């Protein structure tokens, strides 16, 4: 861990003005990822600005019938929020699938979006990593790539985005509200995270010095037919091998609207609107689900240890769609009912 200075900001303005891009300044909220990375000597900020006290701590209704999640609301508080549970159960479920109760109690919504990949090589400074040091090379391509990407990867980086919450947000077509010194921007969720390309060190569209203030959820929460399936090496506290968020609207047993987002397979939550569009209007049946899955995974490419993810994702998509279709009114979600609620 390097040496750094630390200050506390009390207003958004103060936080933004103290953050001088390029001088190694970072905002810190829950710190559940940043501190780990600093301990591993991966992140080496010169200056930390504590933003925990900023006025971004509430969940409120928006004018268009949606919900506005403060960037500093804890993941746990978001998942247990009454409005989120009743109107956006997909989001609640995805959050509860992530990390552990302790981590969810610390981690904030804004920070969840900005957490970095859990690629072993990114975390181990003894091995080359383009995401950590551009130009070093990617150790995962020829290494232990069990947890790595099958979609949208490049020769420079095959890391995945580790978040569960973001997979649901992608399916719900959330918007990320960010503030810069000069202006406010609203970024559609699909454009927030990026693919690695030849610049894998850049994870998102957030510009240096900008701060996430809110996440906005559109009015439609798909609360009748949804599912979040997370497949992993143990029942809790493990990142997804594959996860699927499905948001579905049915009309006479046909698919009226559908969103399918995948986690654990790419550098960002993965959507394929072509597949979704083809599914729309079709009968909500396994055969059509499988077609959609095939389209989503058409371009998928496996590496030595993760080729299984292609078939696993295919099956998970079909399962999630079927379970979303068949969903009965579920019991309220918490970390104890999570496993009961979704028996894998």
């Amino acid at each position: 861990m390097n040496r750094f200075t630390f200050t506390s900001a009390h207003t958004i303005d103060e936080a933004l003005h103290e953050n001088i891009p390029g001088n190694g300044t970072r905002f810190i909220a829950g710190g559940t990822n940043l501190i780990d990375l600093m301990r591993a000597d991966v992140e080496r900020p010169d200056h930390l600005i504590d933003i925990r006290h900023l006025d971004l701590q509430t969940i409120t209704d928006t004018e268009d019938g949606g919900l506005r999640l403060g960037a500093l609301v804890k993941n746990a508080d978001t998942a247990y929020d009454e409005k989120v549970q009743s109107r956006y159960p997909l989001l609640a479920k995805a959050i509860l699938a992530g990390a552990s109760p302790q981590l969810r109690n610390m981690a904030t919504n804004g920070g969840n979006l900005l957490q970095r990949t859990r690629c072993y090589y990114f975390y181990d400074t003894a091995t080359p990593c383009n995401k950590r040091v551009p130009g070093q090379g990617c150790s995962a391509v020829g290494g232990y790539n069990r947890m790595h990407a099958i979609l949208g990867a490049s020769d420079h980086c095959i890391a995945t985005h580790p978040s569960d919450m973001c997979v649901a947000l992608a399916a719900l077509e959330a918007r990320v509200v960010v503030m810069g010194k000069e202006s406010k921007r609203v970024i559609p969720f699909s454009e927030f995270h990026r693919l690695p390309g030849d610049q894998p060190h850049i994870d998102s569209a957030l510009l240096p010095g900008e701060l996430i203030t809110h996440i906005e959820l559109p009015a439609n929460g798909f609360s009748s037919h949804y599912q979040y399936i997370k497949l992993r090496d143990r029942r809790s506290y493990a990142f997804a091998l594959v996860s699927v968020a499905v948001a579905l609207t049915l009309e006479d047993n046909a698919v009226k609207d559908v969103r399918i987002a995948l986690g654990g397979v790419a550098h960002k939550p993965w959507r394929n609107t072509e597949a979704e569009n083809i599914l729309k209007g079709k009968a909500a049946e396994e055969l059509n689900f499988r077609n959609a899955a095939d389209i989503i995974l058409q371009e998928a490419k496996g590496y030595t240890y993760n080729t299984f993810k292609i078939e696993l994702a295919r099956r998970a998509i079909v399962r999630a769609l079927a379970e979303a279709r068949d969903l009965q009114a579920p019991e309220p979600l918490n970390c104890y009912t999570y496993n009961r609620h979704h028996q894998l």
Partner: protein
Amino acid sequence: MTVSMTDTWTNYIGKPVNRVDGVAKVTGTARYTAEYNVQGLLYGMVISSPIARGKIISIDTSLALAVQGVKKIYSHENVKDMPWFDISYKDMNLLPGSPYRPFYSNEIQFSQQPIALVIAESLELARYASTLVRIQYEEDVFETSLEKNIDKAFTPKKGKAGFQKPKSRGRADRALKKADVKVEADYYHGAEHHNPMEMFVSMAIYEPDGSLTIYDKTQGVLNSQSYVARVFDIKHRKVRVLSPYVGGAFGSGLRPQYQLFMAVLAALDLQQPVRVSLTRQQMFSFGHRPITWQRLELGASREGMLQAIRHSAISETSRFENYTENIVNWSGRLYMCDHVKLDYQLVQLDVNSPLDMRAPGAATGLLALECAMDELAYTLGIDPLELRMRNYTERDPEKDRAFSSKNLMDCYKQGAEHFGWEKRSYNARSMRNGKHLIGWGMASGIWDAMMMPARAEAIITDDGKLTVSSATSDIGTGTYTIMTQIAAETLGIPLEDVTFALGDSKFVFAPYEGGSATAASVGTAVWNVCHKLKDELFSLAKDIEDSPVKKYSIDDVVFANGKIACKDNLEQFLFIADVMQRTHTKSIKKKSADLAALIKQMGYSRNTHSAVFAEVKVDEDLGMISVTRVVSAIAAGNIINPKTARSQIMGAVLWGISMALHEESFLDHQFGRFINHDYAEYHIPVHADTPEIEVIFVKEDDPVVNPLGIKGIGEIGIIGVAAAVANAIHHATGKRVREFPITPDKLL
């Protein structure tokens, strides 16, 4: 003459007594090694090698040393005058070869090898300064793949203490050819690291007289003491090692780890107290359960009688030491079979030496043997439990002698009954619950019931309080509690009046806590020393005027309820404290005698046994496996405390599940480095993975092993568990996965 003991409330052996250190542990007053603080403490941070093999060309410490508060940086460049000879680095769990000597030369022998130590006034400073040290390496070609180097396997000439060269018998090759039915299968499991919750840490305090007081995380304070004394050429009596509480060890504390060397090195040099603690990542830098490839061939008659067993194993070891464990030996011991061929080989790789991990060898060997037995059962069309019962042996077929006791049959019967085995339908894929396939599997386990020389010292004072001590340790197993129980019952005094002390090198000799030998070895010493106190107290009691026991012999009295009473008339008694007060005896101190029981043991094979039954639920489409139920039936002699014993078996069962489904340190051959080196990516079961675990201790009286009939249960709980789970997965899915852990992808 017998006496009714129903009114005796100082009987503690066999009772589910609460942990005597439980309150201290849950309230935080039990202090672990890293929690001791002294004035002027300095902190050490270890720098680990990023390469697996090569040489250090240069170490530039200038930037780091320029940081205020950084005291000194140690490496091979400035650590001189350390002993040359291997013998100086000897420890009680020494392996054949040349032990790793920290800072000995510029040679790198394994990835994460410690190469420098930064000492500073705070942990944060030391950690920061460690990032400023610039080290240049010259990399050499290295080999870390067991698979690619399997042709370099060799048979080790000798092994570490306890290693028995596998003994073949009969003519297995021929018998296999002639067998009615044959099963042949290869099994593989990856490396595992112990990963106790508590990280390795040592604090060395340099005393004004030049002596050392050391707090160390270890399974044997005397092992650490002797290591420090030898390496640093200090008299044993000037080195005191303390380790009163250990936050798990599982074998990782059987050898002194390098942070001990480093804390002592710096404390002696700087003449200040120094604490060196490892990071979680560095917990992957030392010993591990070795990656092992095994082949099992079983030949049997149509009726399921074993005609031949051939078991070969090849494990990895380091270039500098031959780590050996008894992997294949058990296959010649568990079942009746005349023709057994066993083979055990090693491959040297550029890794650190493996290290004993819970049930070393048996956890590995029984995994393969018991999976193969299940495969045989399905080749023959016989129930897997029935197959084992048909091949049951009352005698040790390897040594051709009786077991001191063996009640594996009751493990099979009671385990099966509690599990409901008779309701199992034989065919694979025949049990289902909704979308889940259900599978039931079972396996057997065997481990040694060992006794090692150990001593105890006891002092009773005239207030009736007893203190017993021994330089043993309690790695969370319950040693404090069971020793207190044994002492209290033997002397017939209340538990609250007994204090058992351990984890201090100034106490009398005990071996490190390993091999499931502590309860039997130290327990017997405690029993023995309390009997010596009884003898002395009894002769004092006889001296008392009008003593009710005057005309009695010690066999005719009972020590119970704090009294010495006549067996034929319990109303005739003396309080133990009164005996001392009335004879003006302030205190009595005794040391246990070495036991002659070893001769009695020699004619017998001494083992613990188990039968494990597991239920799994498999979502076949998605490859998701859950273990939903386990019944573990254990035959391990006399159980001193069924509560702590149950906890120990439950922990072991969970670890067995981990071996079956979750756990592997992945060795990346690009870098020769274990790459998933933290708790997030090194998967062990979490609460949500934990099934209902029922533990049964079957009755097993064993007068041979030791007077209390204790066999030890540290290892037996894990053995066979992974095989039972794998067999259950086969029963559920019809798939045989022979590569462990069985992760979801292997079922797709």
